[in-house]
């Protein structure tokens, strides 16, 4: 018992002093900036400091890839590399070249460039798909909770029915109806994943509706729309954010699954799910990197999103309800 304690006591001050030195150095730099922006910079730095390192790094790199894809990708992701018509091996294999370090796919397209461009699909679909689901869920949940009665009963039965249909099949049916395109996928994922928001936000609104400030606003003659927008929605917004952060990973996986099954983002556009499907047959020929690259990309992205979601939940939902 004693040993780790003494260890700690020698370690702690050293750590603290190192941190202190860092803070001094950074505040010294800031002092040179003008006084108005100083507190803003300080506030920003404080905000950055508390972010979780791992997930912020993963998501940061991902967003950087997505935004700067044309600058980072060495080749066109849709057209074959000049003079290559089919598979070429990765750089560390015989006949591989560092110009296409992950090799090329069955059409001779550079895999690394396709991975970089694939980040765009994941980021865009992950964020907008979550937002679409959140928007539908917010409207449904607030309407059900606030108006109650048969409106509430009906919306909740739709939620129950939605939960009883396999999500993947629902998504595939919708994508066959609307036609496959990236924005249709966003819409489809919104229509598929709104139920969780609706169910939980409805519960919150049910208790909010009984609170004094809402009753007083009603007595004061505020309209329903005003009460919902000024009193209800701001009070469920934290919960909404937590739910959204936990949904991003699910939505990214769903998009990858749809692309994997060939009903997601349509063909020439690079998406990690469809790259995995293309690489599936190549397992037997030993070109494992074709599969490993999109697999690692998907895994890391979802890991980053989940870690960030967990962090946000602890931060915004201190009671740690199991949302």
């Amino acid at each position, binding site marked *: 018992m004693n040993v780790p304690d003494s260890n700690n006591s020698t370690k702690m001050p050293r750590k603290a002093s190192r941190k202190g030195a860092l803070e001094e150095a950074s505040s010294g730099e800031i002092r040179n900036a003008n006084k108005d922006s100083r507190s803003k910079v300080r506030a920003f730095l404080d905000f950055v400091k508390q972010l979780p390192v791992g997930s912020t790094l993963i998501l940061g790199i991902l967003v950087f890839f997505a935004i700067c894809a044309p600058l980072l990708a060495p080749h066109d992701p849709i057209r074959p590399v000049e003079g290559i018509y089919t598979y070429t091996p990765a750089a560390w294999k015989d006949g591989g070249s560092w110009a296409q370090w992950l090799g090329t796919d069955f059409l001779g397209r550079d895999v690394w460039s396709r991975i970089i461009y694939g980040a765009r699909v994941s980021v865009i679909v992950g964020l907008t798909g979550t937002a679409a689901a959140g928007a539908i869920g917010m409207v449904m949940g607030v309407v059900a909770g606030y108006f109650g009665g048969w409106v509430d009963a009906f919306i909740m*039965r739709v939620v*129950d029915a939605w939960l009883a249909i396999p999500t993947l099949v629902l998504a*595939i049916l919708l994508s*066959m*109806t609307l036609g496959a395109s990236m924005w249709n996928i966003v819409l489809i994922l919104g229509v598929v994943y709104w139920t969780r928001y609706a169910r939980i936000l409805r519960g919150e609104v049910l208790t909010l509706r009984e609170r004094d400030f809402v009753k007083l606003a009603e007595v004061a003659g505020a309209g329903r729309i005003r009460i919902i927008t000024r009193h209800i929605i701001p009070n469920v917004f934290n919960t909404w954010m937590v739910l959204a952060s936990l949904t991003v990973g699910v939505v990214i996986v769903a998009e990858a699954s749809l692309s994997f099954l060939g009903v997601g983002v349509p063909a020439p556009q690079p998406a990690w799910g469809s790259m*995995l499907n293309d690489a599936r047959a190549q397992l037997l020929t030993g070109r494992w990197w074709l599969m490993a690259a999109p*697999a690692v990309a998907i895994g890391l992205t979802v890991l980053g999103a989940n870690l960030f979601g967990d962090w946000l939940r602890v931060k915004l939902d201190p009671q740690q309800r199991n949302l």
Partner: protein
Amino acid sequence: MFGIYIQRRKVIRAYFLRRLVYSAITLFVLATTIFGLVRLTGDPAILLTPEGATELERVQIREDLGLNDALPVQFARFIREVVTLDFGTSFHLGQSVTSVYFDRLPNSILLVTVAMAFSLALGIPAGIISAVYNGRWMDFAAKGLALTGMSIPGFVMALTMMFFFSVKFSWLPTFGIGTWKHLVMPGIALGWYFAASTLRLVRSTMLDVLSSDYVKLARLKGMTEQRVIMRHAFANVLIPLISLTGVNFVVMINAATIVEVIFVWPGLGSLLLEAVGERDFPLVQGIVVMSGTLIIITNFLIDLFYAWVDPRIRLTR
């Protein structure tokens, strides 16, 4: 006192009836949704006729399949099918939907049982250890397991295992159905995510219970730690665990689709996907409604189970 008891029974009966009506409405919404959705996807006659078939042949096929009837007529027929649980004949297989469904159901149940066993065998002990050694390295290991389980999608897991266990070491068959060896990879790929969710539930419930007063009392009166954990703490995990397992079991039958496709497992998921691709309206409707009914019944039973075991539960709403 007796009066309260009778009142409670009345409340439970009212609750039971309301839930029953709710379940029926849910089933109706589900059936209507799937009826409309499959018809929006397009014309099955195009897929059922050979290329270069005349319009006349297609009209004939539509007539044979009853697709030329007005939508309300088709809908009435469909509702009668739902009530009698007889969904007619599959467009592209030519067999009765019910018999195809019950042919495939045992395969699905087998796969799901294995996946469930795997997820419980991994999730429960890891969850208990994680809660008991809260904050120590074993807890971190368990948390890491939960995080990877939530983050690595089943189909990525499936392909990774396929590469290592079938291609590289050739320990296990790549796909198909037959011996127990065929079950290992699909079972793990499917159970993986649910192991993580079981772990999380066991861990959080255990942590709540372990900090409660009666666990402290049990320790104070000299009960061994092992008995405290198993008799007092774990007993409390059982109720939420049973309901989670019940829900997961049915959800898994649906979630298995992509795993079944990868491992060419002849279950309901791959059948449903095939039916969707062929625009086989009766087959899609049949599978979705029958599996959906299972889910609705399970949810109904779980609600009742909760009302029965936990008298504090709010029966209004």
